Every structure is written in structure tokens, then in C-alpha cells.
């Protein structure tokens, strides 16, 4: 039981179908609170699909069916009485392509707190916006141009703005779907550094194609292959001495 307390997300027997195609074959996984967990694996292995199960983004896809349990601190997020919209305020998401709203930087941050009625517009909102931007380490770069469009920022800044936007809702978990795949190495390093800071307060789950990024930025790594979770463990163990041969082959670049 003591170890269960540390689990933020507990996934048991998760299966997912797209129509008749079974994309995930029963995943069991514990995602620990306050850690960065990376999902790696070749394209089409189901890691992104699995990530999107964690905040029910797959609900939007027609013909997508999920079986099994995903527990957020013991609460089944697929229970019939769960409000999906509210769930996503607890489990936020950052996407592959930086996707700020075509609005001002300030509005990008203020939007979600406003629609959720967290704070009123005015000084409170100003403070919330500043806090979120500070936590995302982008405040110093944008504090003088809060009214400028978010889309005018560089790619890396846009992605940190998106992270700030997610933080503004004060979620428990932040899901990141290949957040650096469109960024240059410097911007990537900044995001990785940011993840390291954010894990003090949030549980972070990241999907990445870049194994080195998983190695650099995560505490735990899960390797997916063809809809199965092959191996899950501490990143340092996975990257020096994986116990499964398929993990070993993938990590060392033996893609067959």
C-alpha cells in the first residue's frame, strides 16, 4: 500500500481499439508522482495513443474504444460519472507542434482560468498569468510584450508558452506529446530543463522519439512495441542495462 501512495496514475489492463484494430493489448503501468516518465518506442507502437488515454483525448476519435482502468490517485477516469472536460483540467496536455491560440500572450494564459472561473479578470488574473509564465521560465522573455500575439514568438518560446498555459490551470499531471520534435537543440534543452524544474510540483509524462531526450530528461522510461509495454523501469537502468532483449535492441539502435 505504501508504494501505491506514490502512484499518481495507475493503469491496469488497458486495451484500446480503433474500430476492429486492437492498438493497445493490455497495459499495466504505475506512473509515480513528482517524476518525469518517458514513453519511447518506434512509430506506431502505441505510445502516443496510450498517452492520449490518460486524459481521454482519444474520446474525440470516432470508433475508438477503451477497456481497462486508468486511476488518477485511485479514481477511475473512465467511470461513467466522470466529466471529461473537468478531467482535462487535472491532466493537462502539451502537444507536438507548439499551438498557441492566435491571441495575445496574456490571453493564451488567461483563457483557461477564465473559462473555468478560477479567477476574475483584473489584478488576480495578472498575477496568475505572471506566475504561470514564470514557472514556465518564459516571463523574462515576454513580460514586455504580453499583448503581442503568441504566434509571433519563436518555436521554443511558443512551446514554453503552451506549457505555461497548461500550468495556469494548475493540473496534477502534464502530458507532453513529443514536445520538442519541432524545436532546435537549444530550445529543446530549455524545455528539458523546464521539465526538471516542473517535476517538483507536477507529475510529467512525455512521449518522445528521441531516445537521448528520454535518457536526459526522464526518471522512468517505458518502452512500447506494437501495442505492448515491453519494459518499464528507472531510466538509468533502462539505458545501461535493460532486462529485455527487445528494449536493448531498440535502445542500442538495432532496429532490425
Amino acid at each position: 500500500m505504501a508504494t501505491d501512495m506514490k502512484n499518481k496514475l495507475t493503469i491496469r489492463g488497458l486495451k484500446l481499439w480503433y474500430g476492429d484494430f486492437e492498438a493497445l493489448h493490455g497495459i499495466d503501468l504505475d506512473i509515480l508522482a513528482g517524476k518525469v516518465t518517458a514513453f519511447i518506442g518506434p512509430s506506431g507502437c502505441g505510445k502516443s495513443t496510450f498517452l492520449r488515454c490518460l486524459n481521454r483525448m482519444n474520446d474525440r476519435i470516432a470508433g475508438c474504444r477503451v477497456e481497462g482502468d486508468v486511476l488518477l490517485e485511485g479514481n477511475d477516469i473512465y467511470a461513467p460519472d466522470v466529466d471529461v472536460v473537468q478531467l482535462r483540467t487535472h491532466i493537462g496536455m502539451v502537444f507536438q507542434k507548439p499551438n498557441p491560440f492566435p491571441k495575445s500572450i496574456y490571453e493564451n494564459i488567461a483563457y483557461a482560468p477564465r473559462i473555468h472561473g478560477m479567477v476574475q479578470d483584473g489584478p488576480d488574473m495578472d498575477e496568475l498569468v505572471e506566475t504561470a509564465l514564470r514557472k514556465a521560465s518564459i516571463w523574462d522573455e515576454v513580460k514586455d510584450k504580453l499583448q503581442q500575439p503568441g504566434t509571433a514568438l519563436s518555436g521554443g518560446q511558443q512551446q514554453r508558452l503552451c506549457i505555461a498555459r497548461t500550468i495556469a490551470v494548475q493540473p496534477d499531471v502534464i502530458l507532453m506529446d513529443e514536445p520538442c520534435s519541432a524545436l532546435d537543440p537549444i530550445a529543446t534543452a530549455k524545455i528539458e530543463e523546464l521539465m526538471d524544474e516542473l517535476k517538483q510540483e507536477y507529475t510529467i509524462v512525455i512521449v518522445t522519439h528521441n531516445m537521448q531526450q528520454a535518457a536526459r530528461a526522464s526518471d522512468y522510461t517505458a518502452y512500447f512495441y506494437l501495442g505492448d509495454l515491453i519494459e518499464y523501469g528507472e531510466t538509468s537502468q533502462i539505458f545501461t542495462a535493460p532486462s529485455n532483449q527487445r528494449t536493448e535492441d531498440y535502445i542500442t539502435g538495432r532496429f532490425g
Partner: protein
Amino acid sequence: MSDASKSNALRADLRADKRKRRRARADMRFKWYGLTALGLAMLFLVFFFVDIISKGLPAFQQAEILVQVSYSESVKSNYNRAVDKRYRKLISRSWLRTIPMQLEEHPDMIGTTAEQWVLADYRVDQFLKGHEGHKLKKKYQKLVRQLQEEGKVRLAFNSGFFSNGDSKLPENAGILASAVGSVLVLLLTMLFAVPVGVMTAIYLEEFAPDNRFTQLIEVNINNLAAIPSILYGLLGLAIFINFMGVPRSSALAGGLTLALMTLPIIIIATRAALRAVPESIREAAYGLGASSLQTVWHHVLPLAMPGILTGSIIGLAQAMGETAPLLIVGMMAYIPEAPHSILAATTVLPAQVYTWSGESIRAFEERTAAGIMVLLAVLLSLNALAIRLRNRSEQTW
């Protein structure tokens, strides 16, 4: 050694020989075909404009004659007595007809005389403009020439063209009634087609599951956009007039019929605009816990709005130029007065143009051309508005 020979071979390969020159010439010809086609299209367009403008421009001027008008008591019963018998045939009957009514309204005018510019008969007008087939009798031709020398005949700006409705007398015929009709019909079309079309598109694009039923709807909408417009007239006749009892020839009947015709265009344009909004924006909103309504209303619609407006305006512009379906619902009518309600008999600009083009009197020809010019001006301004909106959408974000 081999380096040198390789370099020579490369130089030989790069040099233009017969085959390469032939290839270059083929490229050139290809370009010229395109240019020729463009030139031909331009030529037709120029011909059309020159023809229409040269025919239509004179209609914006109208002949007037300076005559002595005596508003005597007897004029009330016989308006022909108001002017000298010599000139009576030169003056438009449509003006003479109005004198008794004027006297009715202003009794103090009775017994006065005045020398004033009055509307000339269309034959005089045509004669003055030098058009063939003016049909002015020889003796009147002489009279007009004489008046001309005395400075008692002039070509003045034809304000009547914009302030009168249709008339059997060309010099009195104007576009006001049909323009007001067009505006009414267009407003009604917009009122029905835009909300219904946009909401349909939003549902299909954002909410509808992808199944046989929605696919069927989709195919049908695409097909509806391509069917001949006259069928919409039949549909409108059956539904709105015969079934729902909307008065024939009314702006309501026309507006509803055109709304039916415009719907698929607006739906298709709106769906395209919604689809052009990147999926990442929706994901961002959903990822932050926005509901479907909030996502669509706050993020998707504002981004799609210029596209929706452009599509709607183009659809409405098409509706504005449409004649065939209105023919069926009885809007090809003779309407001398601007309609006062959406249930009154109404005609529209293109229908008016069509009516005039069928008149046998030569003077209607220039009015037909002038009507086309007005219609074109309105359509071009609508299209310009659409382009402006599109450009703005490309600039902002």
C-alpha cells in the same frame, strides 16, 4: 587526365545541343499557349465591357424640353391642355399624366403658368442621342432641331432612372423598384441561409460522427451545389408557395427560394473554412478543458470567420445575380412601385434587366445595358468585400 576528360564531358553535356534547344522551345511554346488563352479571355471581357458601357452610358442622360406650362382649371380633366399643342407629342405622357395629381395636392398652383424643363418623349430622346430607329416623325424632327437652336432642348442627368420603378414608357422606366426588391430578397436570403448553413456546417464538421448517414448528407450537399438553379425555383414553388402559402411574386418567396439555392454553397464554404482551422487549435482548447461549445465558439469560429464570410458573400452574390428560380416563383413581374412589404409583389434587378431586354421599343435597349452596369457594380463590390475579408484573414495570425 581523367579529371580533365570528365570536366570536358560535363561541359559537353551542359552545352545546348539540338535536343536541349528543342526542349527549350517546347517550354516556350507552352508558355505562349497559356498567354494566348489569357489574351483571348481578356479580349472577350473587354469586348463585353465596351459593348455594355457604350450602350448603357447614354441611359444615364435623358432629354428634357423647356416649355410653357399652364396649370389651368381645365387641365385637371384633360392634362393634354397643359402645354401648347405643337409640343404635346414631344413631351412624355408619363409626365403629363402627373399634372392633375400635382394640382390636386397643390391647389394654389391652379391658374398659374410656368416655363419649365419637362421630360421629353423617348422618341425625342433617342433622336437627340442620334440612335437609329428613334421613330420620330419628320415634322417633329424639324421642330426639335428648331428648339435645339433656341436652346430649349437639353440632355440632363437621368435621376428618374434611379427614382422610378418600371414603366411601359422607356423615358419613365427606372430600377428603383427592382433594386429595393433585390435588397429585400437578398436580406431574406441572408437571414435564412447564413445561420442555417453555418450551423449545419458546424454540426457536420465538429460533431457529426463519420457514418453512412452523414456521408450521404455530405454527398447530397455537394450535389445540390451543382444542380441547375431553375430546379430550386420549382422546389420553392412547391414548398413555399403551394404548400406553405407564401404569396407568389413576393420577396419572401424569392428570398426563401434563393436561400435554398445558397445553402449548399454556404455549407461547403463554411466546412472548408472550419477544416482549414488547424486541428492543433482544437486540441489545445480541449487539452485545457474547454467544452465543445467553448472550443468552437472561442477558437474555431473566430479563425474560420473570414472564410465563412467570404463564402457567404460569394453565395449571396450568386443569389443576387440569379434569375431562373425567381422566374418560377413569379418574380418576373411588372412592378412600377417599390414594394412596401416582403409579402408584396416584387421583382429583382436581373429580372428587371431580363424584362427590359425583351421589350420591342428601341429605347429600352440602353436601359437594359444600364441595368446590367448597376448589377455588375453591385456584384463587383460584393466580390471586392469578399477578397478584402480573405486578405485580412491571411494577415492577422
